């Protein structure tokens, strides 16, 4: 067995000698101080994110007071920007952990670096999802009605109860894995595989389940032809495999640049290879849906027509979907350009941003709103998010970013340990090996790796 995580000196010198009862509280204090310590850039960014989150919190408080009439939603389009972002967020959460598959199933050493990044991104994304559901609720004061045992949990018939189970379960699993690895690093012990490997495997299966169940929320509704498609769940999974990798590619570079973490380019290369395939699969499935809808006609076609070309002069979604489709196609082209494959990191980054935004539109506004237009009685009522909705949405994402940043900050010693273990192993086994060559392309584009640590 290769050492997945290297044993490094404990961050707390007394930890070895004491019982967990004494060391755990100190661990928590350590975590809090790590989370709140940083340079000027860190404080500036956190202040900015806090400000945006507070604007969102204020908008939400006003929405509760005045009612959701101050959103753009109506009885015709009864879900909007919040549920669109929720759906996208579930994909991000699922995709983040599915990145762990190559590390464990294919024993890809490069990917060990990003295991904890994936877990922490999943935690942040799930919290974002939960918040989007909460701000969409008319009566958040009655949230306890959905707690099994306390309220009345309509399980198993309501798909929403399944979603509650899988999303919360996913959060707990990822909190456990990330928390355990960080705690072991704090104690300076090598993590016991029995305590995290089974949970990592569980989280991989669970990642598939959260996005499948979320797709079933929509595809199970017979009255909504646009969603009532067996292809919805596979499409969700395919797009999760886009958002996860492209976001982590960008994140790893940011960590390298600003976080002093020597992330291997092998991980970026592997993620790039995944995204290269999934953008095409996603476009193919999207095209299949369009063909079925437009060729056979009927209620399904009128929705697609509304989405792409507008219906009876109603064109609110047309700019959205063409932008989304354009970004998706552009990202597919960019990812397959010879220059990108040769290691042009700027092209790769542009492609990643395009893919991320493209899926955000396609899986968000481009999926939720057309489910309601035309309505079940074939009325056409359009939807445009109001300023309140944009504020709340920005606030939730800002809060999610804060969690991600803090999580990564706390996990930095774990990453460093894993990376050092891999680097030493590389030196021993494979000094000038073939496996490194692919990643060297990216290394060249980046310049020399920084060698100082923490």
């Amino acid at each position, binding site marked *: 067995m290769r050492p997945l995580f290297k044993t490094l000196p404990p961050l707390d010198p007394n930890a070895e000698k004491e019982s967990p009862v004494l060391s755990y509280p100190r661990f928590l204090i350590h975590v809090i101080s790590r989370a709140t310590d940083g340079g000027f850039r860190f404080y500036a960014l956190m202040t900015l994110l806090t400000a945006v989150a507070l604007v969102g919190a204020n908008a939400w408080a006003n929405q509760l007071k005045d009612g959701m009439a101050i959103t753009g939603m109506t*009885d015709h389009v009864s879900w909007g920007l919040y549920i669109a972002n929720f759906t996208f967020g579930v994909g991000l959460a699922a995709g983040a952990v599915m990145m762990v598959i190559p590390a464990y199933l294919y024993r890809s050493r490069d990917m060990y670096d990003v295991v904890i990044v994936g877990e922490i991104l999943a935690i942040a994304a799930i919290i974002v999802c939960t918040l989007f559901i909460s701000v969409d609720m*008319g009566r958040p*004061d009655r949230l306890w009605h959905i707690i099994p045992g306390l309220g009345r949990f309509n399980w198993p018939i309501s798909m929403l109860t399944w979603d509650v189970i899988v999303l919360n379960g996913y959060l707990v699993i990822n909190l456990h894995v990330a928390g355990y690895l960080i705690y072991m690093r704090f104690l300076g012990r090598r993590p016991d595989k029995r305590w995290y490997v089974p949970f990592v495997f569980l989280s991989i299966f669970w990642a598939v389940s959260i996005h499948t169940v979320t797709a079933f929320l929509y595809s199970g509704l017979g009255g909504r032809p646009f969603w009532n498609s067996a292809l919805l769940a596979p499409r969700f999974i395919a797009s999760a495999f886009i958002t996860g990798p492209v976001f982590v590619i960008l994140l790893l570079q940011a960590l390298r640049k600003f976080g002093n973490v020597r992330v291997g380019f092998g991980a970026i290369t592997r993620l790039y290879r995944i995204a290269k395939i999934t953008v095409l699969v996603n476009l193919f499935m999207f095209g299949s849906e369009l063909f079925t809808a437009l060729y056979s006609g009927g209620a399904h076609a009128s929705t697609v027509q509304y989405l792409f070309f507008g219906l009876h002069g109603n064109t609110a979604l047309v700019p959205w979907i063409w932008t989304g489709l354009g970004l998706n196609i552009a990202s597919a082209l960019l990812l397959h350009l010879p220059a990108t494959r040769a290691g042009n990191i700027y092209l790769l980054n542009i492609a990643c941003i395009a893919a991320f935004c493209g899926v955000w539109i396609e899986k968000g506004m481009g999926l939720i709103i057309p489910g309601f237009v035309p309505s079940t009685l074939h009325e056409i009522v359009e939807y445009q998010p109001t300023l309140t909705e944009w504020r709340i949405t920005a606030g939730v994402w800002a809060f999610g970013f804060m969690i991600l940043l803090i999580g990564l900050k706390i996990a930095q010693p774990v990453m460093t340990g894993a990376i050092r273990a891999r680097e030493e192993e590389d030196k021993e086994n494979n000094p000038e090996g073939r496996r490194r060559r692919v990643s060297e392309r990216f290394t060249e584009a980046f310049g020399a790796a920084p060698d100082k640590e923490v």
Partner: protein
Amino acid sequence: MSEKPKRRVALKVLGATLGAGAFARAMAPLASWSKDLSMGEFLQKHYSEMTPDEMNTVMRRLESNTKRDYGRDVNIRDIRPSEGVEFGYALNLSVCIGCRKCAEACHNENNHDRRTNNSYIRVLEMEQGSFDMEKGNATYTHAVPAAGKYYMPVQCQQCSNPPCVNVCPVQATWKEPDGIVVVDYNWCIGCRYCEAACPYHARRFNWTKPEIPAEEINPDQAYLSNRIRPQGVMEKCTFCLHRTREGRLPACLEACPTGARVFGNMLDPNSEIRWVLANKRVFVLKEDLGTDPRFFYFFDE
């Protein structure tokens, strides 16, 4: 401890204090939202779990809230379904003229929000010779009946297999033994999944607190039907159960000037609804979805 970490801790404390202050300020609107919320309301149990005494307390509280918020004395009752009754509704499309008197009667009977002119009934103006709702229009403003058109009022179909009930995560909506699908407005969390699931656009959300002048409020109210709904919860047609469970007819039927509407107990072999079902070629909307409605349509000729 050196000078620098001390300063850093001081800055952290200052930052946290400022943050907490800003958060309190951002959340200030919640104060006026929560002042209407009592502990009793927060902890109120599900309709099916309340004892008669608890139910009574809740209804008296709702009455006094209505008095406080709307300035009107109302009477809220809990009327239960009767044995041997399953309601059915049929509508004669040949005689409906699209006057929307039914929608108006619903608006008044069920204490709907006045600003939005809400009603549980939408009347579609359909094109003669087509059953395609896409060619229909629910927002017509011209004189009726118009040439070449027929009219199809749509309200809750009180499905025997209701998708809205299946999807509700908290069992805030369910089918009663007499076939009426109801909502516990004090249990609904306002997720609007049922509104997305309903194939008939039968459900409505209270996007804001309903606004009704005191003199226009219908004081004859039931817990599960026409009492004034709170903000942020779902509502729907209940076949006017506060009337029909006591032997009266739905408000929409009484208001219909053409006699297009037929309502009754489907388990009573001598009822008018049974006669219609036996002698008219009735159909239901979107039968292919398997919702099995209790609302039937028919043409005379």
